[in-house]
């Protein structure tokens, strides 16, 4: 009988896949204090009216204006995940198990936070269908004109761009990148983004310094970041295809609120606590988050389908 094949473990574990995290870096970060309730309030005074205001010299005081404030409230929520480990796993398979599981829980925190922010964008923002594409669907694949429409909405609402410009340099096949708003798209749209008129793929930026790996291209006044987990709703286009929602926004459009004294906790419960015979231990991760759209004037977006369904 042939001997059993020997197995040799690699010197290190292979990478755990992690999707691109694109939904948090463009939002404002706030911190909620402990012990004062679970709702966090962000307030903004509306502009005072610029109508009138001229004194006529009669000495009569003009009527004063009552300021109006808009309050944006967000409710703090707590999320958690745990992993149980039997002592035999550690005893027989190696003592790095807990270390790896700790890293997994840390990754879970980042991924879950990203998905929660994605859900905020997909649920609480008004989107407009792309119509300029050629795939005949409703919404269509995205085009330059669709991007321009959203730029027009944001600029007309006095939104401020998020990213500074990248000045052109004397390099072949590159072009300057304007100061830009942010757009977040699903990776299934990449082929369609490449086909948009005037697209500047990331490699054609004059400088690669400081660019995030999630960035894909620049179109009009938008720099587009992609993730496989960006929002999509299967089967609801006119032709029954998947519709992708692409949030597009500027400064102070959305917020993520962390809870002081609670954010991102990773802990260990030893076996003598978890198990009556001290065999199972437990690792856990917890975090608190609140999220809000802080200014609907400065965020919009596109519903798109793809020309090349994957």
């Amino acid at each position: 009988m042939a001997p059993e094949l020997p197995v040799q473990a690699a010197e290190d574990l292979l990478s755990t896949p992690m999707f691109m995290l694109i939904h948090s870096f463009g939002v404002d970060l706030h911190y909620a204090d402990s012990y004062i309730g679970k709702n966090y309030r962000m307030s903004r005074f509306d502009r005072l009216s610029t109508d009138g205001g001229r004194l006529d010299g009669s000495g009569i005081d003009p009527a004063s204006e009552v300021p109006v404030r808009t309050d944006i409230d967000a409710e703090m929520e707590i999320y958690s995940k745990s992993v149980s480990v039997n002592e035999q796993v550690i005893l027989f398979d190696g003592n790095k198990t807990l270390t790896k599981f700790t890293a997994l829980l840390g990754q879970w925190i980042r991924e879950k936070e990203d998905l929660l922010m994605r859900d905020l964008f997909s649920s609480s923002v008004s989107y407009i269908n792309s119509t300029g594409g050629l795939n005949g669907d409703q919404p269509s694949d995205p085009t330059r004109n669709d991007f321009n429409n959203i730029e027009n909405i944001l600029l007309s609402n006095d939104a401020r761009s998020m990213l500074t410009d990248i000045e052109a340099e004397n390099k072949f096949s590159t072009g300057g990148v304007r100061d830009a708003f942010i757009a977040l798209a699903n990776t299934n749209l990449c082929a369609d983004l490449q086909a948009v008129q005037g697209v500047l793929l990331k490699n054609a930026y004059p400088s690669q310094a400081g660019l995030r790996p999630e960035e894909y291209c620049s179109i009009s006044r938008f720099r587009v970041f992609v993730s496989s987990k960006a929002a999509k709703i299967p089967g609801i286009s006119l032709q029954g295809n998947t519709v992708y929602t692409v949030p597009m926004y500027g400064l102070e459009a959305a917020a993520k609120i962390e809870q002081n004294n609670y954010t991102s906790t990773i802990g260990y419960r030893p076996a003598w606590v978890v198990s009556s015979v001290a065999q199972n231990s437990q690792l856990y991760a917890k975090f608190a988050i609140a999220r809000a759209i802080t200014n609907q004037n400065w965020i919009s977006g596109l519903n798109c389908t793809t020309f090349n369904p994957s």
Partner: protein
Amino acid sequence: MPFTIIDGGSFISDAGSKNIDMPMSPDYMRVLNVTRLKTPITPLECVGGEWFGAKFGSGASAANRGIRYKHPNPATSSLFVDSFDTATATNGFTYVTEIPSIEAQAANAITAITAASPAVVSQTNTYADGDIIQLYGTTGMLQIGGMNFQISSSSGSGYTLLGLPAAGFAAAGTAGFTRRVSSAGAVEPRFLFVTAISQANQAVITCSVDPSSHYVAGMKVHLSIPYSFGMTQANQVTAKIISVDSATYQITTDLNSSAFTAFAFPASTASPTAPLFATLAPAGASTQYNPVTNVQTGYDFQYQPFRAGQFVPYMKLGGGGSANLTGIADDVINWMAYKLET
């Protein structure tokens, strides 16, 4: 592979489908209709069901399915067992783990949508009043393809779309499909589809679903009205809600639209090039602050924060009649959720 009962409960059925939050991510679930276990029996009534989760591999229950226990026909002394149907006949268990998502269901074909106010849909279905359905492929009414609507006056052959005043449409819908979607957004307050805006000193906005589940008086809404809907003056405008009417799916606002051009859906023939859709989205809440008197005038604070909407995961127990899991109105339904210990 021992089981642990991790949660359970009981509820009184309203004959509609029922969502039960499942924070414990069950592997197995049992439901019993205690009321239908009466004697003498009524043939073919569902008295309970079982659901198997993903840990059972190829033995796991498909969406809207599960094992069904029901009375025999003709009546005898023993129950018999079959499976909930996936198409349109009966509704079983649907385990939903992520939103925004369409609750996994077979697409259901529409045969007609009337050009009336409100519009009425003809469709063989098991939906219940209050369900929200996503419409697509709406031949003859392409301008509503992709919208979702809350249904009322439902029967096995159709239902009313209270939030769709379609009397001005050029033609009726002749075909299309629906899928049921979660009743709440992943985050609330969620955006809503706008189907009408009146020309009035206090504009009345009609929504495709009951807005009272999402908005209250005092909140602000931001309107996105593409030019194809006519009332361009309302585009990108923020208005304060004065009242919300759950009976008509309408919101009365402080927006003076009396001099605006009329709101109207684009023609079906304008699809797919006409920009869609008209929507409203949450824009906080208004507080008046008088710095002379130091008085703030606000609203009902407890309803407005951004917060998780539909809890996930959840189990949808299918409704729509005595052959389904939730039985008929006033039935007592017991449920238990189990988890495998390993």
